[in-house]
């Protein structure tokens, strides 16, 4: 039985708002970490296995939530390691704060499928389940990558590649000095190098703050509700919300002038974004200019086109087709609204509903859920954001360590260690190993070989 000192944590219940949520912590330090943040009747370290403790989860002296801690001692736990499951009140903010606090105490965000993997490695799962576990890792990585891809759109991708570019440039300059000191090329001085690192550090800091701020908004399945003015977008939007009683975490669009709501259907959290109306299909051409609507659509998994069926079932078809062409990565559905005002004999083949009477709203919801299922949004979606923010923060820390090293005149071979850490972390953000050919950047920019 192996218990890794490396302790991991993650939300074990689906993300989004629910009555309760469970955060799982597994590894050799699970109980010790809990005791740093849990004020209960008994120390977690002292509790017997399979006991549930009740108390407060506190962070830096502030009580965050009243929680239960279920104690599972190795090997009698899901992973076979020491496991603590923290039951708390649902909601993105609470769970996030709890996880942040655990990470602060030395836990680390679990990678996709990691709990299951540990369970397997500790013989908690039999061999016939190997295939299934492998599929989980594969699937979660895929969803993770898709989520990442979505988050990374809307300017984020450009920013990240700028970070990579800058980092490569700095490392290239440093390695040039280390491996090619005998060459007849111009080496950058420390002042120049320092200002490059400083500026990269600032950029990464800004980016990390940005991710953190946006993560609630960006998590879950995104649906952009679009259509011509008066097609009934807002009515449909409200109808979907009203029906699904569980209106949650209404993030007010104070910073953005569109409405944004999260609904839970069958346990899936779906973000609906009500966009400003598109006056006519020509607007699409100017879409670059309507950057807000453009960025909403860019970041959406699904574009829901609302058509005022009373003006004709094909009234918004050209808009729909253009959106299909512009956002081929997204799913698209066409909904005929105001169907109560239509009296044609032949029913159309698209979804139809009336936001006013409530007819067909359930069909629309079912269609949404089917698409979400097909998409494969899984628990972990929210955490991935948090993980990325943390990785960005770690990159910034490594850069700061590099700066401190420069200030105390450390030699370049040491500075390179911090920068290499940045490379590894950058790779982790996108979920793949990033193995840049540092020498390539050297050879392409400098004339090597006297």
């Amino acid at each position, binding site marked *: 039985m192996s218990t890794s000192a490396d302790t991991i944590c993650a939300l074990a219940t689906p993300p989004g708002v629910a009555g309760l949520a469970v955060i799982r912590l597994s590894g050799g330090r699970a109980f010790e970490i809990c005791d740093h943040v849990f004020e209960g009747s008994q120390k977690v370290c002292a509790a017997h296995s399979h006991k549930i403790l009740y108390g407060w989860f506190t962070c830096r002296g502030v009580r965050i939530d009243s929680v239960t801690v279920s104690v599972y001692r190795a090997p009698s736990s899901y992973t076979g390691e020491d496991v603590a499951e923290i039951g708390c009140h649902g909601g993105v903010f609470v769970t996030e704060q709890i996880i942040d606090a655990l990470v602060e105490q030395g836990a680390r965000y679990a990678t996709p499928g990691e709990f299951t993997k540990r369970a397997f490695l500790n013989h908690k799962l039999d061999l016939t389940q190997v295939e299934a576990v492998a*599929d989980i890792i594969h699937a979660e990585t895929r969803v993770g990558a898709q989520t990442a891809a979505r988050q990374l759109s809307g300017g984020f991708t450009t920013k990240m590649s700028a970070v990579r570019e800058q980092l490569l440039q700095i490392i290239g300059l440093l*390695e040039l000095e280390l491996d090619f000191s005998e060459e007849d090329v111009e080496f950058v001085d420390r002042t120049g190098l320092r200002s490059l690192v400083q500026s990269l550090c600032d950029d990464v800091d800004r980016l990390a703050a940005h991710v953190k701020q946006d993560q609630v908004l960006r998590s879950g399945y995104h649906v952009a509700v679009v259509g011509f003015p008066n097609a009934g977008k807002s009515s449909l939007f409200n109808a979907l919300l009203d029906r699904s009683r569980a209106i949650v975490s209404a993030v007010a669009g104070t910073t953005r002038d569109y409405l944004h709501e999260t609904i839970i259907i069958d346990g899936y959290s779906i973000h609906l974004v009500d966009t400003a109306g598109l006056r006519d299909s020509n607007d699409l051409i100017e879409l670059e200019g309507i950057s807000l609507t453009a960025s909403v659509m860019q970041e959406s998994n699904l574009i829901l086109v609302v058509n005022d069926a009373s003006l004709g079932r094909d009234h918004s078809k050209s808009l729909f087709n253009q959106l299909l062409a512009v956002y081929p990565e997204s799913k698209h559905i066409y909904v005929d609204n105001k169907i109560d005002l239509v009296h044609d004999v032949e029913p159309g083949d698209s979804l139809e509903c009336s936001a006013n009477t409530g007819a067909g709203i359930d069909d629309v919801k079912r269609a949404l859920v089917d698409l979400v299922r097909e998409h494969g949004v899984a628990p972990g979606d929210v955490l991935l954001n948090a993980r990325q923010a943390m990785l960005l923060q770690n990159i910034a820390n490594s850069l700061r360590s590099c700066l401190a090293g420069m200030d105390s005149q450390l030699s370049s071979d040491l500075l390179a*260690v911090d920068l290499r850490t940045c490379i590894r972390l950058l790779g982790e953000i996108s979920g793949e190993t990033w193995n840049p050919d540092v020498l390539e950047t050297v050879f392409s920019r400098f004339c090597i070989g006297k």
Partner: protein
Amino acid sequence: MYDVLVIGGGHAGIEASMASARMGMRVGLLTMDPSTIGRLSCNPSIGGSAKGHLAKEIDALGGVMGRIADASGIQYKMLNTSKGPAVWSPRSQNDKDLYPLFAQHFITTQPNITVIREQATGVIISHDCVKGIQTSSNTEILARAVVLCGGTFLNGVMWTGETATRGGRVGEAAANGISDVLRSYGLETGRLKTGTPPRIHRASVDYTKTQPHNGDERPVPFSITTPYVRNQLACFATSTSAETHDILRDGFSRSPMFTGRIQGAGPRYCPSIEDKIDRFAERDSHVVVLEPEGLSTDTVYVNGFSTSLPFDIQDAGLRSIPGLSKAEVLRYGYAVEYDFFYPYQLKHTLETKAVKNLFFAGQINGTSGYEEAASQGLVAGINASLAVREEGTFTLQRSESYIGVMIDDLVNKNTDEPYRIFTSLAEYRLLLRIDTVYTRLSGYGRAFGLIDNETWRVIERKENVKRTLSSDITSLKITPQAINEYLVSLGEEPLTESTTVTNLTRRPKVKLEGVLRYATEIFTTVCEEHEDVVHAIETELKYEGYITKLHRDIERFKDQEQMSIPVGFEYNRVKSLSTEGRQKLQKIQPASLGQASRIPGVSASDVSILALYMR
């Protein structure tokens, strides 16, 4: 019948033969001409950035390159001394006539080695196992293991201008046939290119127009067995001009590089002068260093002027360089194009995956450089001997040596240019310093019988001095009165109370040697006799935080490195692997999960998935 048959007497072949013979094997060393054993085909120099590390590692393992280099050395320089101890790297200029003589001396005085003057034309294979080789005189030489060190000789073609000559080195024939035999056995070959600059007569140089480059004031030998070396000759630097570039550009239309007649890829880190002019058109000058090729020879190596341009262009170009207006060319520069075997077809032992007991070492694996070749020869020689004795394998980790880094890179990454070692290729660069080389590797060399008793005593003595001194200075306290004068002179904060020498040495500007000299007379001899040890200890103290971090990383990846993948594992069975990952894994067939994780195209999640199947 030989135990180990080594084909080729270059730097790889020498180490392979020596190691095998010292391991008690009956060794046959096949060469077309015994007088060419150990020839320095290109520059008259050993070591350099990262290559110096390889040369030191060879010495620590009990190889001979460092000893030969010291015996024939005429100038020594420690590179990068201002860049941090991890990248300190020794380099020597060598007498190109003496180097092969000493190499041949080692070979001929070593018991168990028979030098065979023959040309190999084929490899005899039976039941996927090597049995020996065929020669041009139609004889068969049988052996239990074969180490192929063919250098640039396999289907070698030399180019100058529009002239192509078959051959592996100027005046020497190419080896044809071997590639075909092995290709028919399913091994994949490619073409690579490398080049060498012209050699000129030393008396034709006007040295007043050049700047001398001298060796270090206190030259340091490569080998721990060499007590003393000295500098005997200087190098001289000059540079090309815009005029030179114009002259050379005029010849581009007759260059095999630009007319597309050379197909093989050349090294980016050692481009020809025509490449440099072409790719960095904005520069109107490139440095050229004139390196004497020896004490008794007239030839001077024109470093930085590697070229395959026609003779008349080479002449005119050289004569436009300050100091070379009367240059007399003794041998023109040329490019050589040759077959290599894609090294993914090798195990980490350098044995081919396809043919048992057949090993490849050196340029044949797509590397360039004497040191790269020699290190592979050493590893292949040891493993060939182990294979004959059926005693397991010898592989070096990335975390313990540059040799390990190089071989791991070779077998995992598909080279499309000649591979050269660089310090930046080592993720644990900080640990792979030249001052740790004997600690890291000599145990292996001793265990295999490559290090004789006398050398072992020298190594042990150094290690003992290091251990004792390290522990002494941890308890040795020093008073403010004794040291403050020194601290103030460095601009460091003076002490207010006594502290240990260890603590003081951790301060950035403080030198251990300085502290020891101020602290007590006792250590004066140590400082003088074991300057290297004092420096090593100081480095370890100053780097402590970083070194600990790297050791933690090694620990973290250890499980992964040690988790082996069964031979012939069916990756196609694992549906969840990414398509690219599966293809790469199937092709390279990594031996461990750690290796799998370094194959380009294999993602982190692929590795996680594989881990499940390795239980």
